[in-house]
């Protein structure tokens, strides 16, 4: 195992970066596909249907027990993906070709970029210090996430505009209006967390890893529940998930921004959407649910001591990734759960909720915690 680590650190930094980049693509794309399958299955079960359960490639049909995988629809993932790659990709004659082709790419870039700054695990190094597992450990952490992930809406606007047709255009308009409305509340709801993490006299930090370190005791979600709720609601809006599905709104906008898209270009939008969901869930877990700490008041370092994993960085890393991903995946499920529970809001309701309810709530919440934290941290 040390040989692997040595081999890795011996590589040229550029080569390391390329491998990391490929790893991101190699993880996020299948993840997007898997999520779409899980979405189909969850929706089916909630509606009393079995869901996709037919596809079975004939060359594996002889494997005993494969029927279970078939019933779970695992092979539909391959079928859907294959279809997406090979089907005809129509480009309507009335679109602005350059931007039409650009939009899905613009959608993917922020989705894949933000993953790099989200820590997804941690291990103890030789000095017994927690080290985050993250592709790019930036000091600006959360700022980078907010800054880059918000660029994803450009894809929607671009797609809506380049499609040169009414409904996509309306979808793009809605997406931008919605993003602007909810971005404010989202950012404001996160501020109390960083007010607490940045203790007076300490080093200023916006790093997500430091936020998790600050949650070795109580998780922020426990004593800042309002922040967590505002963040979560804004997250639903930011990721364009129901009940804030304005940009797509198939009942009133046909398909919204992606009406004119087909095949893999359409698929890229959805991989991007699921990537945003995963990143959003991950950031929520890091900020409010203790990241890779298994339970409140039970930090990962203690667990490592109990399980004698302090000298096993790789095993501990895997454990922390498992804990973190488990929590994040629960939120992916929550996204789907809410999607099949709540109907879509009307557009004016979305705007009213964003500006008249969520934003004042976020500001009041910020003021309350600013005063509270100031009082606690300057008491002694």
């Amino acid at each position: 195992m040390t040989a692997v680590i040595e081999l890795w650190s011996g590589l040229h930094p550029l080569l390391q970066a390329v491998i990391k980049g490929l790893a991101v693509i190699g993880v996020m794309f299948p993840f997007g596909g898997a999520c779409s399958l899980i979405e189909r299955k969850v929706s089916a079960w909630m509606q009393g249907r079995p869901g996709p359960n037919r596809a079975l490639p004939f060359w594996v049909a002889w494997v005993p027990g494969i029927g279970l995988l078939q019933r779970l629809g695992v092979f539909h993932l391959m079928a859907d993906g294959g279809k997406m790659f090979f089907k005809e990709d129509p480009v309507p004659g009335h679109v602005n070709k350059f931007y039409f082709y650009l939009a899905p790419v613009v959608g993917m870039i922020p989705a894949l970029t933000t993953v790099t700054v989200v820590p997804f695990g941690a291990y103890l190094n030789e000095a017994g210090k927690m080290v985050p597992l993250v592709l790019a450990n930036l000091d600006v952490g959360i700022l980078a996430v907010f800054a880059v992930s918000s660029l994803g809406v450009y894809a929607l606007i671009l797609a809506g505009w380049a499609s040169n047709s009414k409904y996509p255009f309306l979808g793009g308009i809605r997406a931008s209006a919605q993003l602007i409305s909810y971005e404010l509340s989202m950012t404001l709801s996160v501020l109390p967390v960083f007010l607490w993490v940045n203790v007076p006299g300490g080093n200023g930090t916006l790093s997500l890893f430091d936020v998790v370190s600050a949650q070795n005791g109580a998780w922020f979600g426990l004593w800042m529940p309002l922040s967590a709720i505002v963040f979560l609601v804004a997250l639903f809006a930011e990721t364009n998930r129901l009940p804030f599905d304005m940009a797509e709104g198939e009942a009133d906008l046909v398909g919204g921004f992606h009406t004119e898209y087909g095949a893999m270009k359409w698929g890229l939008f959805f991989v991007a959407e699921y990537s945003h969901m995963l990143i959003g869930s991950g950031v929520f877990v890091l900020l409010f649910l203790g990241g890779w700490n298994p339970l409140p008041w039970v930090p990962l370092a203690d667990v490592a001591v109990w399980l004698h994993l302090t000298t096993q960085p790789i095993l501990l890393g895997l454990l922390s990734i498992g804990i973190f991903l488990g929590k994040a995946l629960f939120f992916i499920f929550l996204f789907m759960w809410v999607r099949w529970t709540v109907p879509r809001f009307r557009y004016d309701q979305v705007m009213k909720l964003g500006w008249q309810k969520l934003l004042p709530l976020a500001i009041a919440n910020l003021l309350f915690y600013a005063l509270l934290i100031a009082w606690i941290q300057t008491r002694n």
Partner: protein
Amino acid sequence: MPYVVERKPLTLSERIYLPQILAGMRVTLRRLFAPNVTMEYPEQRPAIPTGYRGVPTLVKDPHGREKCVSCQLCEFVCPPKAIRITPGSVEDQPDRTHVEKGPQAFDIDMLRCIYCGLCQEVCPEEAIFLQNQYTLSGYTRAELVNDKAKLYELGGTLPDQHFKWDKKKAAAEHGNTH
């Protein structure tokens, strides 16, 4: 009579809205684990109720004899003109010579059939029945025209309460043709 629906003011939990969403999520979660209601069709088939009007078929009597006498009433009554009968003699059927007539060809175009059941209703011989089969598919239009052999294959044998032509034959042998 017109009446006014009373609009109650929303309660606090309804105005906060999140508790309502949680209540809804409880319902969907229970549904998630509830058994499916879907019938997985080609493997599982629905129970066909009695009196179901499926594909029209020709039936034989319990002795395996053809019942149709090609009177062509069904052909005349068929609203979409799906039935085409070519009448023929029954000389090749020694046990039915007293019947005089039988269909030489009997075609039902299932692309025209509307499953109204008038042919069954009009048949004086109880020879044509709309039975339980409800699926049919084919690659060509010609495949969906059921000919006589296909109709008998689909129809099979149904019980007969009258054995009308046996009675007629017995009466004729006793010199009473009416």
